[in-house]
């Protein structure tokens, strides 16, 4: 499907030709939104990460998406997803949504990942799914100030925890490292009275406001 076809099809669900994809999206819509006040170990989080042609939101485009689930505080290799956007962006994105369900999602530098993904959802699926986004870029220095007390690069956090991954700057490779950081973050959050996704999201919002004010 090229951009012209999409343009003609318009930004509605009517543009989804593939019945399997339409079915998957229908199921996703029917899901109940996960209760964000549940404790971490009862919450299924999805670590989301993207791979783009660059870091410029205006010019660069999405190449691939990766997702790793954290369920009951554990990462199981079977609970992971990775796919390039081409040749079937609709299938890729629909699968990604099915994988995430309606639980909270975790990213590192969420602003970029989120914008990239939302634009892709909009373009290819015709809507932007509403998800609860958590950003480790902001949360990690708040939770582990004794390690690094300011927003730092992923490499710095990996270094601090001694975390390794099989391939850096690969959507899934980085997601694997981010997911391990997320395990640590959830554990620390629990003992610091940020026991749910909602509590973490609130804390993240406050941190952002503080930073803007200072």
């Amino acid at each position, binding site marked *: 499907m090229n951009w012209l076809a999409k343009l003609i099809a318009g930004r509605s669900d009517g543009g989804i030709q593939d019945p399997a994809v339409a079915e998957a999206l229908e199921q996703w819509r029917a899901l109940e939104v996960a209760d964000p006040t549940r404790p971490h170990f009862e919450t299924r989080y999805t670590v989301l990460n993207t791979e783009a042609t660059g870091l410029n939101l205006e010019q660069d485009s999405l190449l691939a998406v990766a*997702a790793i689930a954290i369920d009951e505080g*554990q990462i199981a290799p*079977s609970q*992971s997803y990775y796919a*390039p956007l081409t040749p079937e962006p609709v299938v890729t994105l629909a699968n990604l949504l099915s994988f995430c369900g309606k639980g909270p999602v975790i990213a590192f530098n969420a602003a970029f990942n989120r914008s990239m993904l939302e634009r892709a959802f909009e373009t290819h699926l015709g809507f932007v799914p509403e998800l609860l986004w958590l950003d480790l870029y902001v949360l990690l220095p708040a939770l582990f100030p004794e390690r690094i007390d300011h927003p730092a690069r992923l490499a710095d956090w990996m270094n601090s925890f*001694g975390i*390794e991954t099989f391939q850096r700057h690969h959507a899934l490779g980085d997601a694997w490292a981010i997911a*391990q950081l997320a395990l640590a973050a959830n*554990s620390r959050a629990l003992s610091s009275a940020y026991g749910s996704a909602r509590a973490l999201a609130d804390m993240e919002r406050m941190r952002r406001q503080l930073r803007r004010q200072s």
Partner: protein
Amino acid sequence: MTASAPEMLVGASSDFLKRFSPFNRMEPEALAFLTQRAVLAFHARGSEVLTPEMGQARHFYIIQRGKIQSRQTGATAVTEYASMTMGPGECFPIGAVSASRPSTNAYIAVEDSFCFQISADDFMQLMQMSPVFHLFCTQYIASLLNQSRQQLQTTFSQRAAEQQTMTTPLLQLVKKKPIFVSPDTATRSALEKMAESRIGCMVVADPEGHPLGILTQSDLLPRLLLPAFDLSRPISDVMTANPHQLPGTASAYDAALEMATHGIRHLLVIDSEGRLQGVVSERDLFSLQRISLRQIRAGIESANDIDALQRASKDIRQLALNLIAQGIGSEQLTQFISALNDALTRRIIVLAQAHHDLYGVDYAWVAFGSEGRHEQTLSTDQDNGIIWICPEFDQVGPLRARLVAFAAEVNKHLAACGFPLCKGNIMASNPELCLTLDEWRNRFGSWIREPDPQALLNASIFFDFRVIHGNERLGDQLRAWLNKTTKSNSAFQRMMAGNALQVVPPLGRIRDFVVDDDGTIDLKKSGARLFVDVARILALRTGIESSSTVYRLRQAAVKMGVPPEEVAAIIDGFHFIQLLRLRSQHLETEHGSPSDNKINPDTLNELDRRILKEAFRQARKLQLRLKLDYQL
């Protein structure tokens, strides 16, 4: 389509696990089974991963990153003592999960840690599908020991392979084409030819190549230089006629024997027609001394002087190297070394006896310390003494003087054969250690009555005595008396125990090992000694006659009702430390530096480090037992 996300993550886990034993040897399908099912979880510093209170162990854990401490639960005193720290690649709780019971230890994260875990059911299935993993789990320490031995073998087998056997035909050892001159050659030109071809000797032969004589470098000084021999005269005037020769089919061993018998350094190799094929030097043979136990033994027993015994002593070291290459364990190895050193010592004593009038004197030459325990490594100095009985009509003083003079010669010759003189003068030539049976009893008795630190130190050396030569009954009598005296004296045993517990295994709480300032561990002082000291006390307490640590532990275990597998693990630990000592001594000796017992744990491979840790844990277990027994 490229690899799916689960495939990539499984690949990452399996790459990680392959850095550790036993996963690096695991069957591919078993490793795939494991990594597909292993989930990763985080354990914050200070949190409990698994405790006995959690009930039946439901998961098997493999540490991915961080440190987990295992603490024995129970009485508080025990808890503090029996803890150990595990790092990446290590797994737990093998016993509990395979027996479907609660863990006996509590596992606490001492750092922020990540662990892979699989369910108990998957663990069982993995054991069934993977013989490697099964072996790993059931023979935890034993299998590690084997592997290490195998690794040791590969290190040495290369070197051993370079050595040919002493049965190699001489013709194979000849490296250069034969060089010879005719008998009428001027001596000067013969010497020029020697220098030019860089050879150590010049053969003189007739035109067909039949050897007539030889002139070696060592002949130059006495025959040419000092008498100012006229170099224009023919070489036949100065050569050694009728040189020693052997056919090319003779063995290297024959050549060594010929050289040793006639005291020569070069031997001519000839073909079936008696024509020169080449020259074999002593040095050529030296490089392939792969001599058997029997040969060395025969060599020792037939030796008539110290030179021959010195050669035998070198052979013993060479043999030890070969035995390590063949993968022999440290117990047998130290026994071999011990047996050969005993034979060597006996021969030295017999040779010395010929120079001293000891006719009719009832005495026993005894070894103390590691030699007394059959645990000699390659860098042991002599520790010896004499037990004797003074005949009724003789005077003690003059007789002792004769024995001391005799002992001095033995000590000197032992030193010449590679057993350095004892710096602490623990030698039979010291009149203080050349005592009658009654004097020894008094000496031992005074230590037992007043166990001050020096007495305890003495006890740790002298109580491990063993008769090497002479009347064995003297040793038996002293041993029987000693066991009887100490068995009833629990205060003395307690002092010995307190002394033994002063050195603790160098295991760290956070780091693997506690090292000395130079980054090393002294495997004698903080390794072998831990086992030896406890074994000695157990032997005294249970009245065991052997002086060997392993026998003492085994026999004491039987008497005290310790399960055989428990004592086997302890002995394995002791053997491993001894093996590491021997290995480092060997490698160092080859480089020519003095051997000591220090080892830098950072230079060990992952496997050896882990076994060493396990060995130290066994030492700690042993010490703990002693601590409880004597309530220290």
